[in-house]
Every structure is written in C-alpha cells, then in structure tokens.
C-alpha cells in the first residue's frame, strides 16, 4: 500500500494491483482487510505513530523552548519532503476516505494538539488558565495553522519550499520579541 500510494496517491490504488505487489491473491487480501480503505488506514495509523515519535524526539533534545519547537516543526517538514506522496495521502486524501477518514483526522489533530500544548509559550495558555475546565484552544489553532500551510505546499507540489517553512512557522507561533 505504501509503495502504491507513494506512486499514485490513494485514489490510484486498486486492490488487484495491491495484491499483485504483495504477491497474494485478492481473496487473501480480503481475509486480511475488509476493504482498500481499511488497509490504507492501517498504513495511516503506522505513519502517524512514526511521525509523532519523530516530533517528540526532536522536541526532546536540549535548548530553549523556541529552538525545540522549531526542531519539531523541522522534523515534520523533513518527513513531508522525504515522503511527499505519503504525506499528501495522509493529510489531504485521508479525511475524504469513507467511512471514517474525517474522524481519524479529527482524532489525530487532537492528539497532536495535546502534545503541542506542552511546547507552546505561556502566553498562549493565559486565557485557558482562567477557565481550566476545558482543554485549551490555542494548541488547536497552532496545529491547524501549521497543517494548513504545509498542506497548501503539498497540494501545489511545492516540496522545495517546505524546509524554509520551519523558521517562518516558528516565527508565526512565537512572538519575535519574546523568546522564552
């Protein structure tokens, strides 16, 4: 699935081709996965785990908050640059895949936002601390913003522009004057 998605995007994958590449019969395929979508989502889940682990690791090294944040963003951008078709499939195509592509997207975004909450400067969470019952809004805004910008470059196939986004997105998130 990963190979075919990398070559053709999710839309271009057929079960026949998939089974052929895996050197199994379509019957065997259906014994493993009820549908093309389920197989794809299994791949999606693996990619998400892998990328999140990379982000956490990148953020985990030493340095100030802004530097660590930028490393995490860079790690994400590096993944998108190295595997643009997989990144496109997971970010852009997956939400439209029935039956629960949108739900998966939502879950993943919430997860990343929970991680990101630890990585944001205190200024973001000021209002949230005033009413602590709800999870803070700011991380969702930040994660949504970063993903939107990256998706746009992926959509336009402007992969060479991805690395430059690291410092720019970090600047968008951190007040230039207020390094913490």
């Amino acid at each position, binding site marked *: 699935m990963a190979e075919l998605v990398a070559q053709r995007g999710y839309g271009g994958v057929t079960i026949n081709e998939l089974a052929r590449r895996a050197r199994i019969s379509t019957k065997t395929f259906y014994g493993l996965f009820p549908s093309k979508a389920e197989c794809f989502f299994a791949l999606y889940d693996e990619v998400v785990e892998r990328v999140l682990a990379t982000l956490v690791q990148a953020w985990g090294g030493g340095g100030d908050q802004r530097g660590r944040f930028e490393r995490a963003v860079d790690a994400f951008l590096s993944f998108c640059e190295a595997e643009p078709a997989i990144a496109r499939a997971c970010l852009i195509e997956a939400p*439209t895949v029935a039956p629960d592509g949108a739900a998966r997207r*939502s879950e993943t975004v919430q997860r990343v936002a929970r991680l990101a909450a630890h990585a944001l400067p205190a200024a*973001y969470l*000021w209002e949230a601390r005033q009413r602590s019952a709800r999870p803070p809004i*700011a991380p969702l805004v*930040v994660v949504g913003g970063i993903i939107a910008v990256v998706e746009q470059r992926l959509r336009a196939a402007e992969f060479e522009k991805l690395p430059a986004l690291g410092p720019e997105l970090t600047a968008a998130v951190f007040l230039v004057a207020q390094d913490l």
Partner: protein
Amino acid sequence: MEWDRPNLALVPRDQLPREMDDQTRRERLLAAMVEVVAERGYANSSVPRVAERAGMSTRSFYRVFENRPDCFLAAYDEIVEHLVSLIARAYGAAGDPETGLSRALAAFLGYFGERPEIARVCFLELPAVQPAGEVRRRRTIERVAEMVAHHLSRSSGGPGPPQRLMAEFAVGGVYNIVYERVWAGEIESLPRLAGEIEQALLAGGMRAAA
C-alpha cells in the same frame, strides 16, 4: 435570501400566494435544502424530500435546479457570500485593524453559533459533494486568507513571517478549531471561544504584524 434570519423556518405554504414567482421558489428550495441536509445528512436528502419541505413538487424543483448538487452548491455559495460580507462589514466598521480583526472573528463565530444548521452544512456536509465540494472549500479558505493578508498589510508591519503565510496560518488555525467544535456537536459554544482564539492568534506572528 435572508441568510441572517434567526431561524430557517419556512413560511407555511398555505400562507404564500398561490403562484410563487421564480425568486420565491429558488429561495424556498435553498432554505429547504439547508434544513433537510442539516437534519438528515446530504446522502439522505433526496430531491423529493427537499421539494416537499419547500412545499413544492419535485417537478418544480427541477424547473429551478438541474439536480441535487446544483441546489446544494448554490445554497453553499450564497451562504459564503453572506458570511464574507458579514465579516467585511464587521471589520470595516471598526476604528483600527486590531479591533477590526476582533469584530470580524466575533461576527464569524457568532453567525455559526446562531445558525448551527449552517455550520453543519458548511463544515460537515460539503465534503459529500465531490469534487466540487473540495474545490469550493479551498476557494473559500483562500478568499478569507486574502482578506486576512489584506488586514496584515494595512497594519504597520514589524519583522515577522511573510504576510501571506501568516494569513494562511491564521485561517487554517481558526478553521481547525471551528471544524473540531462542529464535529463534536458543540457549535453553540463557538461564540464564547472568540477571546481565546484571538489570544492564540495575537500571541504569535499576528501581533508582530497587527
């Protein structure tokens, strides 16, 4: 089309003149489409059902619209026009750019808070019509990003990320939080989030520019 009426309850058919004019037919069908889709989902909103809600015959539907997507997308387009002019007016009426941003955001969130069925249609149901739905979604986002980029160019810019990128970032962020709330069925809470969203936007590069 009064997309700012507090509820979309259609005037009962028997209170209308016997012969509807084209304008009325179109408006009733658009309103009915939004109501039915918000209640049942696009997939379960057949043309006969929508026509019935509008107090019209299926034949009358097809005199106004080619098919179901045609009607649905027309409703979406009108909603977007209404929203765009709503936020432009809110922004323009303010004395300075930062207040303008605040007012525009409040107007945007307030509209969906009052009209949850419209939020459902725009965020959850639009993807049911492909590929036209995705094309429109992207176009609407770009349009709003243009408006935000324009706002950033008005404010005295300090050093910071490029305005276009900042605009995409801000719109993407707001879209994400609105989508999550609509998805969770918590649309009525949107207006209350305005302050926190604004804080999140201004904590970073939006303040450097604004």
